[in-house]
């Protein structure tokens, strides 16, 4: 634990991330104003003691919207990461533990899913069932699956050659038990780092999808949806665009710094660039 805290960027990133998560959580029980409270006479107000971040075109309190929107963004990205981990990690572990045809199938499957950028999946789902936050979750989740499968397989392969795994096999453990008891615990740190990266990519992706109308729908709000609402008037009222956009940037930077810090703290050899979900 001490080792973790000796990395200042990790501490800063983690604390900032936790602050944003806490603000999001707070929005579940309290926001300065109800987010659906429309008050046309009080629209386009500048920030004041009453409305910390001003009000939007419908007179809604921007601070309340950002709080609630940040929570939606976190939630969508987190569930999408859970989907990626839940499906991808078992696939990756199976590929590493069984090898042969299993590995081949898993690798071809991940290749195949890579051909479907999240936007395309979201387009297909929206055509099928209409727009909604669930589409964004599923689309980003599907994108996350091959990412986690590859990371799990890569990490597990390097562990699988070690002596204690061979000892486990000698002790009569099957592939599934090897994967569960020996491989999975040893790739946890890799998965946590990748999870942080996918969280930040997920938040960006959610923003993009909601912005083009394929994600979160009113009366719920997300940071991307706020940008969509502001689209028609951002030339006259740039403030409405600046606030949610900056919120996204700050949250993503916090997550990225935390992720980079974690990676350095856990294993400095893992430095690499991260590909982007949408663009």
């Amino acid at each position, binding site marked *: 634990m001490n080792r973790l805290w000796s990395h200042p960027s990790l501490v800063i990133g983690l604390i900032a991330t936790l602050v944003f998560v806490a603000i999001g959580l707070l929005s579940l029980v309290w926001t300065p104003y109800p987010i659906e409270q429309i008050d046309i006479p009080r629209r386009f107000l500048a920030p004041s003691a009453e409305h910390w971040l001003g009000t939007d075109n419908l007179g809604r309190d921007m601070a309340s919207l950002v709080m609630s929107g940040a929570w939606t963004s976190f939630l969508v990205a987190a569930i999408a990461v859970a989907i990626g981990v839940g499906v991808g990690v078992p696939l990756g572990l199976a590929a590493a533990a069984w090898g042969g045809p299993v590995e081949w199938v898993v690798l071809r499957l991940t290749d195949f899913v890579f*051909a*479907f950028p999240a936007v395309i999946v979201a387009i*297909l789902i929206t*055509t*099928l069932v209409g727009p909604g936050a669930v589409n964004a979750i599923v689309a980003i989740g599907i994108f996350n699956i091959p990412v986690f499968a590859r990371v799990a397989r890569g990490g597990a392969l390097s562990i699988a050659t070690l002596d204690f795994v061979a000892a486990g096999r000698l002790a009569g453990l099957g592939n599934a038990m090897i994967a569960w008891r020996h491989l999975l615990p040893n790739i946890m740190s890799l998965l946590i780092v990748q999870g942080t990266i996918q969280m930040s990519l997920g938040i960006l992706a959610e923003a*993009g999808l909601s912005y083009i109308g394929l994600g979160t729908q009113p009366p719920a709000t997300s940071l991307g949806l706020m*940008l969509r609402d502001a689209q028609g008037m951002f030339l006259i009222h740039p403030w409405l665009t600046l606030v949610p956009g900056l919120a996204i940037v700050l949250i993503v930077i916090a997550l990225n710094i935390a992720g980079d810090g974690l990676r350095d703290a856990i294993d400095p050899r893992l430095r690499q660039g991260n*590909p*982007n979900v949408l663009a």
Partner: protein
Amino acid sequence: MILFALRRFLGFAVTLLVAALVIFWLLDLLPGDPAQFILGINATPDAVARLRAQMGLDAPAHERFLGWIWGMLQGDFGMSYTQRAPVAELIWGRLGVTLPLSIMAMVISVVVGLPLGILAARRRGKPLDTMVMVLAQTGIAIPNFWFGMLLTLLFAVTLRWLPPGGFTPWDEDSGAALRGLILPSLALALPQASILARVMRTALVDVTSQDYIRTARAKGLTMGEAVWRHGVRNALLPVLTILGLQFAYLVAGTIIVENVFYLPGLGRLIFTAISERDLILVRGATIILIVTVTATMLVTDLTYALVDPRLRERSAP
């Protein structure tokens, strides 16, 4: 090499076929009947049945699927029933915006990202390195469509240098068309350039500690010469993979950025098609996007193997 290329090409064809199957099956599940849609609610069941037969909708699913694939191979993507025009023609018209936009964005991100990455790696640990990395960290965190809005505010509203949106067709005024794409391509390029700068820096730093750089130094080259002649070329390998992925996702990313600038690209076509439930058009446009993504990855793989012979020996990674 030929065997490698053949295997990759086969993989490409299979991926596309399965992708087409998934898209066809998903959109086939949908309730709603194009024939009914065209004729309206007041049409007699008889007339609907006749039109269904005429459009080939009464054939079994596998026949319609094969018919669709066969048609596409000959460049026939079917007719859009809301726009009453061939899907291929509609998509082709929109690609005139989407493709130049993606290519411009790619060029900008390479021209900006790679030199910055090299510079940062050469000045590792110095203030310049820190500055480039902070910039890249920020660039990665900025949603490209939001950056597009900011660019519009600055260059179109405040400075009035460039149009805030809209698009003049190429054959009308190609200069105006190009100017219309400058801000969108800058917006698309920002996160890509940031990623490229980071990858390039990491790759070059890794390469610098390799034995062949030391050998080159021992032969009397200065560090700068050794890195330039031997390092950069080797460091470009991982960069190449990222480039391929990036271009693939850039094409998909234009769909979002088009929205900011009211560009008549593929994205706008797809959204209209979704809201009007024009399934034939959605089907054609998504498969074109997937072909672009997959083909880019294929080309990347092949280039990679061409540049680095070590990769050909290895069976599929």
